[in-house]
């Protein structure tokens, strides 16, 4: 609510100050050549502006204000629909923000990188004259990016105003909850089981089965928790879903609460997501007003309330038992299972924990049916999965693909291939910091729970980092294990000290001090950590190391035995030499070298004295002809 109060008067105040200048353009519009006669049907105009975090950061609020001002200035305010400028959530391609759809006469044109100063021309040429501003429209990459995707969850995110419950109801929102409440609990669970929906939070446990276990527990009260902790670095699928379509998550929780007999729902969300929290608050308030949350919801005799619990942003608090401890006010630290949360969860009572994405799949499963959902995806992994596609790839962003799609399609069709033309794909890391590395040779593999597991990685919550041949796998493994080490809760020995020692061994290898048996030590330690750690963090933390050793062992050996980092990433192992063929004798390298290692005289090619070189890389950066290697 606070946000609306903040934004609305601001918009008003802005247009208010501009009232004086309205006259001029108004007359201009009147005397303008063909606005009313031949122009498009402005009455039906719809403008959609991306107001996701990416959009906001790129200035979408200013763009919205500018549209209002401009429409007013052009005297169109009276013609267009009152709410013709709509806010939407993230569309996944945040690099192109602010993204704006202009829908006129039934056709949609999408503009990219819109700034307030561009609005004048868009209104003038496109809206009034019907001529879209071609040079600002999105290019073919926007379409290839979207065409191969199957958007169920993200589709709605890019279409509706997340702060308006009526927009959600307008596209069939809350029909799922209404329908679920007219069925028996048993029927709802059966439907979810039939759909084959599996948890999107990491482990991929069958959602229907989890619900069934909880519904069988005879203790009361029961709780349903939405896990919106989303701690993987670079992951933002859950945030985008909440920001773009908070009601779908709430509706999913109502369905789950009803099916399992939980009357109280918690949304555990990290405090670093202020926009998502704000939108959830608005959504909960609006849903309560409509009678979808509260006592006797949908007049079906079922009570359901939702509370928001803000987490302090510890990665481990995404683990379900740590999350429960955190809600209870204890240190966020996992505990042994059994007992499982479905039997003894929050405050010792039966509790279902589901991920944001899992929950937001439920409304359409109930309305469209289990068989519709099961028709999407692969044999054992149904539906779609949202991934945060990043790394050395052309189109980075949020994508939603059917389960079972090949990695190749994701990287080359949706992702548009490597970011830099002359580089090759080397590997893909899936599953976040505790996932594994999949080498380019396995690019045809299907992306589903089982296949990813088999290759030593995992689905995780949906991080996907693409690496090219300039990425050092040892360095990469070190980066990921440093993350898990610093986020370990410290409860158990293998994870707390074991990952630290692995990190140190990797640091020593990348620093040129690797020992002969370090690889074997890493494998033994990694295996033992996986086997003996208490929770999923420790049990998967060694994955990046073990999978890179499995597929890129030679690279490790090269670091240790030859003292060479094949990708040229590890500074300590770099050997700087001058490529005499390319050297243009400019001497820039000699001038920047602070150790006097570059031997150069005018009209002579430079030579680097290895014994003096401290491998700082200054010469490499300074050479305008790329002749230092």
């Amino acid at each position, binding site marked *: 609510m606070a946000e609306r109060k903040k934004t609305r008067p601001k918009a008003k105040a802005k247009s208010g100050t501009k009232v004086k200048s309205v006259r001029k353009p108004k007359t201009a519009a009147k005397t303008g050549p063909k606005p009313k006669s031949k122009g498009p049907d402005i009455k039906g105009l719809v403008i959609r502006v991306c107001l996701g975090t990416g959009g906001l950061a790129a200035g979408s609020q200013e763009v919205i204000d500018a549209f209002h001002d401009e429409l007013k200035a052009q005297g169109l305010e009276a013609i267009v629909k009152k709410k013709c400028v709509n806010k939407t959530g993230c569309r996944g391609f945040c690099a192109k923000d602010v993204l704006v759809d202009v829908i006129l006469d039934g056709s949609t044109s999408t503009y990219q990188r819109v700034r307030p100063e561009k609005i004048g021309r868009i209104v003038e040429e496109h809206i009034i004259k019907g001529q879209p501003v071609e040079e600002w429209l999105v290019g073919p990459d926007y379409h290839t990016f979207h065409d191969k995707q199957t958007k169920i969850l993200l589709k709605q995110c890019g279409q509706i105003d997340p702060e308006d419950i009526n927009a959600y109801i307008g596209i069939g929102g809350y029909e799922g909850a209404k329908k679920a409440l007219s069925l028996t609990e048993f029927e709802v669970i059966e439907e979810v089981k039939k759909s084959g929906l599996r948890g999107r939070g990491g482990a991929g446990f069958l959602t229907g089965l989890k619900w069934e276990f909880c519904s069988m527990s005879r203790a009361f009260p029961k709780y349903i928790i939405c896990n919106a902790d989303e701690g993987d670095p670079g992951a933002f699928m859950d945030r985008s879903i909440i920001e773009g379509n908070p009601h779908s998550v709430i509706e999913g929780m109502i369905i789950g609460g009803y099916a399992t007999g939980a009357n109280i729902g918690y949304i555990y969300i990290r405090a670093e997501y202020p926009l998502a929290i704000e939108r959830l608050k608005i959504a909960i308030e609006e849903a309560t007003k409509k009678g979808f949350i509260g006592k006797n919801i949908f007049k079906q005799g079922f009570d359901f309330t939702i509370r928001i619990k803000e987490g302090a942003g510890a990665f481990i608090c995404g683990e379900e038992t740590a999350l429960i401890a955190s809600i209870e006010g204890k240190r966020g630290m996992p505990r042994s299972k059994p007992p499982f949360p479905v039997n003894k969860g929050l405050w010792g009572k039966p509790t279902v924990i589901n991920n944001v994405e899992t929950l937001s799949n439920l409304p359409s499963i109930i309305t469209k049916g289990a068989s519709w959902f099961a028709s999407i995806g692969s044999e054992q992994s149904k539906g779609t999965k949202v991934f945060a596609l990043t790394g050395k790839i052309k189109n980075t962003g949020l994508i939603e693909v059917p389960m079972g799609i090949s990695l190749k399609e994701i990287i080359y069709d949706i992702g548009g291939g490597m970011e830099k033309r002359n580089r090759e794909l080397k590997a893909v890391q899936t599953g976040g910091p505790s996932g594994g590395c999949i080498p380019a040779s396995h690019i045809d593999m299907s992306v589903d729970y089982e296949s990813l597991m088999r290759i030593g990685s995992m689905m995780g919550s949906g991080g996907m980092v693409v690496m090219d041949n300039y990425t050092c796998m040892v360095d990469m493994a070190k980066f990921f294990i440093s993350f898990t080490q610093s986020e370990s809760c410290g409860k158990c020995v293998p994870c707390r000290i*074991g990952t*630290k020692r692995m990190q140190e061994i990797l640091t020593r290898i990348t620093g040129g001090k690797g020992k002969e048996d370090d690889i074997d030590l890493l494998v033994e330690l990694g295996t033992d950590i996986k086997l*003996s750690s208490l929770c999923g963090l420790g049990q998967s933390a060694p994955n990046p190391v073990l999978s890179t050793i499995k597929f890129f062992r030679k690279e490790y050996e090269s670091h240790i035995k030859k003292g060479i980092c094949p990708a040229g990433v590890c500074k300590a192992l770099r050997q700087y030499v001058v490529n005499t063929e390319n050297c243009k004798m400019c001497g820039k390298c000699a001038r920047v070298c602070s150790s006097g290692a570059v031997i150069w005289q005018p009209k002579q090619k430079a030579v680097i004295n290895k014994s003096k070189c401290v491998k700082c890389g200054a010469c490499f950066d300074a050479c305008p002809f790329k002749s230092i290697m």
Partner: protein
Amino acid sequence: MPEKKIKKVKIDGRKIACEREETILQAAKKAGIEIPTLCHDDRLEPYGGCRLCIVQVKGVVRPLPACTTPVTNNMEVCTENDIIRRIRQNIIALLLSNHPNDCMKCEKTGDCALQDLAYRYDVDSTRFEGEKWDLPIREDNPFISYEPNKCILCGRCTRICNEVVMAGTIDLVGRGFNSMPDTAFRRPRTIDNCEFCGQCVSTCPTGALTDKKGRGRGRSYEMKKVRTTCSYCGTGCNFDLNLKDGKVVKVTSAYDAPVNHGNLCIKGRYGYDFIHSADRIKTPLIRRGDSFHEATWDEAIDLIADRFSGLMKKYGNKTVGAFSSSRCTNEENFLIAKFARTVFKNNNVDNCARV
């Protein structure tokens, strides 16, 4: 409810019948099978932190911690095989890799679970090298010395402080390799936040937490342990007085004591200075005029008997009574009450316990 049924389990080939909800560790203990533990204490909720007690359960790929895993019917458990042994050795080696390995002058030598395990599993501290904690010894508590470098993060101190004492003085703070038990905002452990009960010391398996008063006064195996009952209050806690050269050097918990299971409060654990105090009254004192005079027990008892008989004869038996101390044991209190009822023949009995 399935929990009520008797469950048959097999541990290392031995058949054991378990009632109620028992853990593998409890079932094994019953059958005399030892499973190594570091973070387990019978007084605390199962934790599963050190991972030393992991065992192989038939049909489960991952080894499971014996201390937290409940037995199920027909479960088959193997408490040690090559993989488990290797993992245990690696866990101990990891612990030693961040440990001062200072056994020669460590207060805990001879009574240290980590030292014993390293010996039993033949592990030295050289397998893993890397960063080691180098934190100062904390002497902010008047009764407890805390050497963080020797802490293995078993979490026993923090749990006993929260679960049993309910003082909430300490918890694990920090993340990853740098997690450690400490107070909120790492403030000193003083009278403002700590009860000085020493419960944390009583559960610490290593030399990280030690009783300050007993430091440097002898190895645990040099002590003669004398089981006694606390003389401070009516609870009747038991503990062991540790004697060296005939002197009480410190108090340690008697974990098998039926009343208190090794738990003690500050008085029982640290209030023993009076024993060898020069001011201590060792004989009965009889007041003559304004001053006290040492006497024998016979003299004192004769005097009391004379006076009581005189008073009763003169004023009647209702005018006298017995007032005992809550520092006496239950048995002593019972006896004094009985004395009043049979000798005074009245019910005038009271005790100082009012709080």
